[in-house]
């Protein structure tokens, strides 16, 4: 942990030290969450970005990479301020990151108005995929609805007839529920949208009691970051394991699992989720990423980390495609759209709205050879899936 802060500080210092208008470098501004309990996600992202830079020797073509990390504090207004600072003061070439949909929605215009590129390495709000799509916006993640849609599809296949749904009350939470509802053919017996943000609700006693009384067959949740661990804790304590099977998206991940293992919450073993990536994916890029991450940090990277790692590789492919000429905006745009790099999730393409068209897999929580809790792919739910807002985007 301390070393990460140091690395970040050194990187930041080099960034400031080497002067603003240095044509020999690519400047990347990275907006993520480094404080509040959500800092645990930011830490994983930071580790992965640093690992990516290490893997490429801090070079993209002939250019050095200058990374400037900024903390959005889990707040849209702060995220926008930091984005403005990156665009105006630091004059970066790419603004990357954004864990949270509401932060991305607040910040995006600052980047696109300055004719710079913005790459979401996580958030995928429906608005940005649809009406607010922009030629300079790209994504190494997904549109919010897609992952829960894949889960809905899986639930239909399993023959689950009724569900209780819980998610946080913010842009992504609403997208997730909408995505699930658009595909799931069974009955939704009840739904709770809980308070979210820096002071998010973490005690779900009232909601779990309602879920249990609803008579639903299974429970579907979306609780990213710290809230995920808290939810699973309470799910097990409430005795719902075995009564209401748990299906989740972005809740049970490499961030929650080590802590759940520490607390020995076996209720999570075998629980299923959908995702576009998993640490066990068998391709060279992923093996190198996961292997080196494990060796360096002693734990698995999360999907946030995988997407962040990809974001650096995507930028590298674009910078190299234009031969380091960062003024060639059209060239960069075309290269970003071509997705010509080895993604850790394997090959994918992007649609007219620049959202990835990719596979979604069903993952299960398993114990690996060394006794660590992790996730493993069970099956492919969607092949080359495109989000359902692409038609609302007027780009070709």
């Amino acid at each position: 942990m301390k070393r990460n802060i140091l690395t970040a500080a050194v990187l930041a210092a080099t960034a400031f030290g080497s002067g603003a208008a240095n044509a020999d470098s690519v400047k990347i501004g990275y907006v993520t969450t480094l404080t509040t309990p959500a800092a645990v996600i930011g830490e994983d992202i930071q580790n992965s970005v640093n690992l990516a830079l290490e893997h490429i020797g801090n070079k993209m073509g002939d250019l050095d990479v200058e990374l400037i990390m900024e903390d959005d504090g889990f707040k849209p207004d702060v995220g926008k301020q930091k984005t403005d600072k990156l665009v105006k003061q630091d004059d970066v070439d790419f603004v990357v990151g954004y864990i949270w949909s509401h932060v991305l929605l607040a910040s995006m215009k600052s980047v696109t108005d300055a004719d710079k590129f913005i790459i979401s390495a996580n958030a995928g709000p429906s608005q940005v995929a649809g009406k607010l799509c922009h030629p300079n916006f790209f994504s190494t993640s997904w549109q919010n609805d897609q992952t829960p849609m894949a889960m809905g599809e899986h639930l239909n296949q399993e023959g689950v007839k009724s569900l209780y749904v819980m998610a946080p009350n913010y842009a992504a939470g609403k997208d997730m529920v909408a995505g699930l509802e658009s595909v799931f053919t069974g009955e939704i017996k009840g739904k709770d949208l809980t308070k979210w943000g820096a002071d998010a609700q973490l005690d779900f006693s009232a909601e779990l009691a309602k879920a249990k009384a609803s008579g639903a067959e299974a429970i579907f949740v979306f609780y990213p970051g710290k809230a995920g661990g808290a939810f699973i804790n309470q799910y097990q304590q409430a005795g719902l394991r075995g009564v209401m099977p748990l299906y989740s998206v972005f809740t049970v991940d490499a961030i929650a699992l080590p802590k759940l293992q520490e607390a020995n919450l076996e209720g999570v073993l075998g629980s299923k989720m959908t995702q576009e990536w998993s640490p066990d994916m068998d391709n060279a890029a992923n093996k190198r990423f996961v292997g080196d991450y494990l060796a360096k940090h002693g734990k698995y990277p999360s999907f946030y980390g995988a997407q962040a790692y990809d974001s650096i590789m995507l930028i590298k492919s674009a910078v190299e495609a234009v031969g380091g000429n960062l003024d060639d905006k059209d060239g960069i745009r075309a290269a970003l759209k071509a997705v010509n790099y080895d993604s850790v999730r394997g090959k994918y393409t992007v649609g007219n709205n620049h959202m990835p068209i990719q596979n979604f897999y069903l993952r299960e929580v398993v114990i690996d050879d060394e006794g660590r809790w992790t996730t493993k792919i069970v099956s492919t739910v969607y092949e080359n899936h495109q989000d359902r807002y692409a038609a609302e985007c007027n780009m070709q």
Partner: protein
Amino acid sequence: MDWNLLITQLMNGLQLGLLLFLLASGLTLIFGIMDFINLSHGSFYMVGAYFCGTIVAKTGSFVLGILFGLVGVFIVGALVEWFIARKLYRSDHLDHVLVTFGLILIFDTLVHMIWGASGMAIPLPDVLNGQVSIGTLVLPTYRLLIIAAGLGVAAFLYVLVTRTRLGMLIRAGASNRTMVEALGVNINRLFLIVFAIGASMAGLAGMLIAPITEASIGMGNDIIIIAFVVVIVGGIGSVKGAFYAGLIIGLIDTLSRSYLDDVLALSIPIEYAETAAPAISAMMVYILMAVVLAFRPQGLFPPAGAR
């Protein structure tokens, strides 16, 4: 009407109310007796959770975690009183707010430096991780333990405040501090003890909640606002007020989270009700405070003879 659900929700409300009481009891005493606004009271809540988690990780015993955690937070509370709060009693409230806000930042950063950003899960012994069945009613064992612990502490504080010499001084201090000082009571020592006991109560609340929500940086900063609401609704300086107000607010919060969408759905379409209900239930507590301040500004149970 699902009676099992109603009873479960009442128990959930009771549990939240008792946690709020633990936090608010110290806050109300410190506010009432020393006239000191301690925004960093929530930091004791966080520090307690981390102390307990560290001991549990080392020894594997939850009971030891609570005991050492209590002692640890008592010491931290005493140190804060001794080195910081004591110098500020004569300053005005704005200074209290500034200094204790700074303390929040210091505590948050210290925890980040010592334990890292990732928070801490506290494993419970298997006995506590299960459920208790009463007829058709199934309740999580651990939540019952929180209720029992909360009621136990309430009883302890009741005896302490109403039956002991220290309690007499505390009550006297809350009613009229100048008179207590004039009577020659060692007010410095009284303040130190009250402050440290208050900190321990907050720490205990943090230790009790952490196995449910995990310990994390800034965990006390959100709940402290509600704890201030409890203090104001109950009457500043009144432990009894903090008890009843904590229960009222815990129940209002839990019950509105449980039933408000159904109630709203009677008059407006269900999809609006589903979106409006979380927002309104988050406001309920503050609406209650506004009503109390409008009709009974001294709080529901002000200490006897309070000015």
